[in-house]
């Protein structure tokens, strides 16, 4: 059974005097047991909204969120913390500096979910559990009494991860967990995440703008553009042979050591407005290097181009290889 199934998930925000902003539009995907799924796309594409829906901090407008066969989408976000599901779906936030309470020591930050969600009152047991979580993320025990401002960026990132795994969740949602870190620190955190996944068997939903990082850590990748999934498939294949023109541009835009990748296509213009999008027009219309008249009349649905690899483009075929 999948850990998570999202079915035709929608989130629309009313924008006064303008209409409805379609942040997430009929998004369906699954995350299997122990699988790590990457979520990529440019800012404003709905990644963060999708993450907040999945972690149940936001209520969907329509669609289902199914956790291990049980629909949790209808539970209001405000009362979700009181359910048995909260400890199972946990999150690591983007900026470790901003997401830790400055008045909490590292110990308190890690102990908080244990106290609140596992009702762990016994001080000795709590100390034991916090120490265990800290050990798992490689956080030295003498750092536990420190406040966030006394910790380095990498140490703060470890506290954020320890806090999220303290309850042994099934699904860990990571929102750009290394974006604020230097490369040398990023490398250690990425290795830690790979190790935790192997040891604890958790599933990951990994949001990142760094495609090289996603490729390293994820089994499967979902590409979003303006609230829609435009392509999804196995990580290696999707990066080597992207089928959707947006994915091709995205992959081609990654800077590469040792000179520029061949076949870089710059995207002209700006994304279309996400407010009241015309349902019959492809979301990528206006920026697409391949567009034709048909793309304005008929929005392309996701369709398979290879087993487990789908793209939302009329002209999608498994593209030629992009050489690194």
């Amino acid at each position: 059974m999948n850990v998570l199934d999202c079915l035709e998930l929608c989130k629309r925000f009313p924008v006064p005097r303008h209409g409805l902003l379609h942040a997430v539009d009929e998004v369906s995907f699954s995350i299997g047991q122990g699988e790590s799924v990457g979520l990529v796309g440019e800012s404003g594409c709905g990644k963060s909204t999708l993450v907040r829906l999945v972690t149940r901090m936001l209520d969907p407008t329509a669609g289902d969120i199914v956790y291990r066969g049980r629909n949790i989408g209808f539970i209001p976000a405000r009362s979700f913390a009181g359910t048995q599901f909260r400890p199972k779906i946990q999150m690591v936030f983007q900026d470790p500096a901003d997401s830790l309470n400055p008045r909490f020591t590292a110990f308190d930050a890690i102990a908080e979910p244990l106290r609140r969600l596992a009702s762990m009152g016994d001080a000795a047991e709590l100390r034991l559990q916090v120490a265990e979580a800290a050990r798992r993320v490689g956080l030295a025990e003498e750092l536990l009494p420190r406040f966030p401002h006394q910790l380095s960026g990498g140490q703060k990132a470890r506290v954020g991860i320890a806090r999220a795994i303290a309850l042994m969740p099934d699904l860990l949602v990571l929102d750009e967990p290394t974006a604020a870190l230097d490369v040398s620190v990023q490398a250690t955190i990425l290795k830690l995440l790979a190790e935790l996944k192997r040891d604890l068997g958790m599933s990951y939903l990994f949001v990142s703008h760094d495609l090289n990082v996603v490729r390293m850590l994820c089994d499967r990748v979902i590409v979003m553009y303006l609230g829609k999934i435009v392509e999804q498939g196995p990580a290696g294949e999707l990066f080597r042979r992207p089928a959707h023109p947006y994915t091709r541009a995205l992959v081609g835009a990654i800077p590469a050591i040792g000179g520029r990748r061949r076949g870089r296509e710059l995207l002209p213009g700006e994304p279309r407005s996400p407010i009241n999008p015309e349902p019959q027009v492809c979301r990528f219309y206006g920026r697409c290097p391949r567009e034709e008249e048909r793309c304005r009349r008929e929005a392309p649905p996701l369709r398979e181009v290879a087993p487990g690899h789908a793209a939302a483009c009329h002209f999608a075929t498994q593209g030629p290889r992009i050489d690194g």
Partner: protein
Amino acid sequence: MDALPLLKVENLSLEFRTRSGTVRALENVSLEVGKGETVGIVGESGSGKSVLSFAVLRILDPAGRVTSGSIRFAGMDMLAAGEADLQEVRGREIAMIFQNPRTALNPIRRVGAQIEDVLRAHAATLREDLKRRVIETLARVRIPDPERRYAAYPFELSGGQCQRVMIALALACNPALLIADEPTTGLDVTTQAAIMQLVSELARERHMATILITHDLALASEHCDRIVVMHAGHVVETSPTRLLFERPCHPYTSRLIASTPTPEIAIESLASIPGNLPDLRRADLPSCRFYARCDRALDKCAAEPLPALSPGPGRRVHCFNPL
């Protein structure tokens, strides 16, 4: 490179006096930028990349003090120059674009007015020509519909467009040197590619020299002729771009390259760098500031003054035990 470089920083040392001690932010830093050349300064946060560029423009925090060394720009002694001369140079001869374009632009003034300010201050433009020149400038950085954007406020523009406005501001007076401090951090990769292409193109067209400050080695490798690697206020290595990646000489450079995720590398072989930057307030800093993190360190690395080796043409490395 020309015989006489456009910018020459020599043995620059700089410190900040703070309540908790003196931070030796730069030590013996040397850097040359030739006319029309693009030089990358790479390093992690805290390595002194931005402080160096602020020193060049003499826009350092008042707590900062240059203790030794020189900065010469087009024959002018920047450290001895008076404020009036500096104002002539800033904006007209040396321009800078900053990391976060949204905070670098004035949020409550229209972007057109902000570009007009630069032209009025430096370019002796006739009043009736101002608006036309601004719209031309906006069109040159490929902002769609420049007539309309002229009257836009920064919040009405996307991050990429704000950065284009910053570039328009910086290039309004055809500077000889552009300092781009993390110009694409916080932008999407697709926008980053477009912005970097624009900067490279404009630099080539005008034969303008560029200093690209970035933490992204791959970005630097695509756009720079030469790269200067900094660590904890030291320049550890200077090299033509291709050679730096083919055969890094300094252990820090090599580690930095190996810790950068690339399409080819598996997570298991990703390197990391142990430890942290040393505390630059310490009185007993080892002479090589990478000493405590280095796996090739020798005893003398801590005590003796670092050598400047030249492992090849245009290359310099400050290390007793280079690769």
